């Protein structure tokens, strides 16, 4: 990837992270850890990968994105805002009474949200349904799963379905940050090895560093050029990525920063933004 392009994407990903921290802080509720781990992938999807038009969010021919791990809604909202679906400050009303920015994605009321999700395992199935139509109409479908979400049996029903119907226009991404609510995935319910499981279900499996745009780009390119089977990017990520005290800490799965923590997180992200800008 061109170094200027990478720089621009890195700056945007940092703004997405600031949006996540701000909205969760304002709500004093939400899921910062798994939102921060997903930020770079979402940034690449919406600014480079998908054929979309924020001015025409319902265009039938558009590519679709389904956030199957719906609790990472703050990351999706911040990305859509930055991409121009609505004003950047709009999602700062996350989870508050009267806001369209529900705790989990609501396709009926939020421009750019292609599927309502929240009950884990369902989004990937809905993405399969969209991909069936997309095969006929020529659009691609992207769906992001959590590694904890892969405990759900429905994920594997969908995995079987996608490979049976050769949905090669479907690209799943597992945000593999190794943590779920009650602890590490290894302690709570070991879903690993996910690459071997998806391979056994007939998928094209691609290993990706979730915080390296070169690796992300290579992953999506490999997925797009693979025919005859769905692809999954196993995105090795850091939960809480970008905020030092949240990184790899399970207690930041679903808790909001207090004021001092919010200020520290924002100043770290501002610092990061400056460093990227000056590089």
């Amino acid at each position: 990837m061109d170094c200027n392009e990478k720089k621009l994407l890195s700056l945007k990903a940092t703004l997405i992270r600031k949006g996540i921290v701000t909205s969760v802080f304002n709500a004093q509720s939400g899921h910062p850890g798994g939102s921060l781990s997903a930020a770079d992938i979402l940034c690449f999807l919406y600014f480079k990968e998908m054929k979309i038009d924020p001015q025409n969010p319902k265009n039938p021919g558009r590519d679709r994105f389904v956030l199957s791990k719906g609790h990472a809604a703050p990351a999706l909202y911040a990305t859509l805002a930055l991409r121009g679906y609505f004003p950047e400050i709009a999602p700062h009303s996350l989870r508050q009474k009267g806001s369209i920015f529900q705790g989990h994605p609501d396709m009926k009321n939020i421009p750019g949200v292609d599927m309502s999700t929240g009950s884990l395992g369902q989004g990937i199935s809905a993405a399969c349904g969209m991909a069936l139509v997309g095969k006929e109409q020529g659009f691609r479908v992207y769906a992001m799963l959590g590694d904890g979400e892969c405990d759900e049996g429905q994920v594997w029903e969908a995995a079987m379905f996608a490979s049976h119907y050769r949905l090669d226009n479907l690209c799943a991404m597992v945000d593999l940050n190794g943590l779920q609510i009650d602890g590490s995935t290894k302690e709570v319910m070991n879903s690993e090895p996910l690459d071997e499981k998806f391979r056994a279900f007939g998928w094209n499996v691609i290993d990706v560093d979730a915080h390296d745009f070169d690796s992300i780009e290579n992953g999506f390119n490999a997925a797009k050029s693979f025919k005859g089977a769905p692809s999954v990017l196993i995105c090795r990520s850091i939960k809480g990525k970008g905020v030092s005290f949240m990184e790899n800490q399970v207690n930041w799965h679903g808790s909001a920063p207090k004021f001092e923590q919010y200020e520290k997180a924002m100043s770290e992200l501002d610092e990061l933004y400056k460093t990227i800008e000056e590089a």
Partner: protein
Amino acid sequence: MAEKIATRDAYGKALAELGAVNKNIVVLDADLAEATKTLYFKKEFPDRFFDCGIAEQNMISVAAGIAAAGKIPFASSFAMFAAGRAFDQVRNSVGYPHLNVKICATHAGITVGEDGATHQCLEDLALMRSIPGMVVINPSDAVQARAAVFAAAEYVGPVYVRLGRLAVPVIYDKNTYKFTIGKGETHKSGCDLTLISTGMLLENTLLAAKALEELGINAGVIDMPSVKPLDADLVLSAAINTGAIVTVEEHNIIGGLGSAVCENVAESRPVPVIRVGVKDTFGKSGKAIELIDLFGLGVADIVNAAKQALALKA
């Protein structure tokens, strides 16, 4: 004797008819196409038929994705699995985003027969009725089932259609019958009480009204295929004009038509309501016809319920 056709059979044939006129219709099944009768569609339009295997939860969410991409999916399985096993998927993938998915569930109620309690869904009306925005239709015969399937295809939004395994008498005239979501059918007006039935027990309800007539009791009969939205005007006029109601359904007395009617009259015109249905118990194996009597859904049971309702009448 009237011709007997299962409502599931009428559904399958209606789907094949619809498929020819509406290219947007897509059909999903969960390894039960022979039983749900979606195979009629599969034979005609194999490119628009997707077997999901024995994975109903995935099937319902796949249907939601298809609807979100602009097609009209009909998803079928047995009621136990479509409404029961996949309840969370129906609620969150279909109901919450109000997607245009049609869930047509067969083998509802105890008339599944020999398979027994695990397959005899007596809770689906209660489950589906509790989801905001869900239309719930329980046809009483093959003519109504066909018309309901056409109406479901035309309506934009989620619809649950409850269908049976057993061949039941054809009651309506296919040349003249018109079905409207939210409307009941008055078969007979009465002055002493009103029998309101939904689904395949309409025949027993009509026979019960005749038996009551011989006892000098003039019972009205309403068929209520549209369990949600309920025909509230018709229920209210039954309450006002006859002062007592008996509901009849092949479903648990908790949560189905009986509950819907009770809720309705309690808030508009309180009158005694006696519910004929399966009395908060699981089903059992047996021949369908035997089970109707065993579980208190026979003509004599409806007559007794009518007497109870009359006794409570102020």
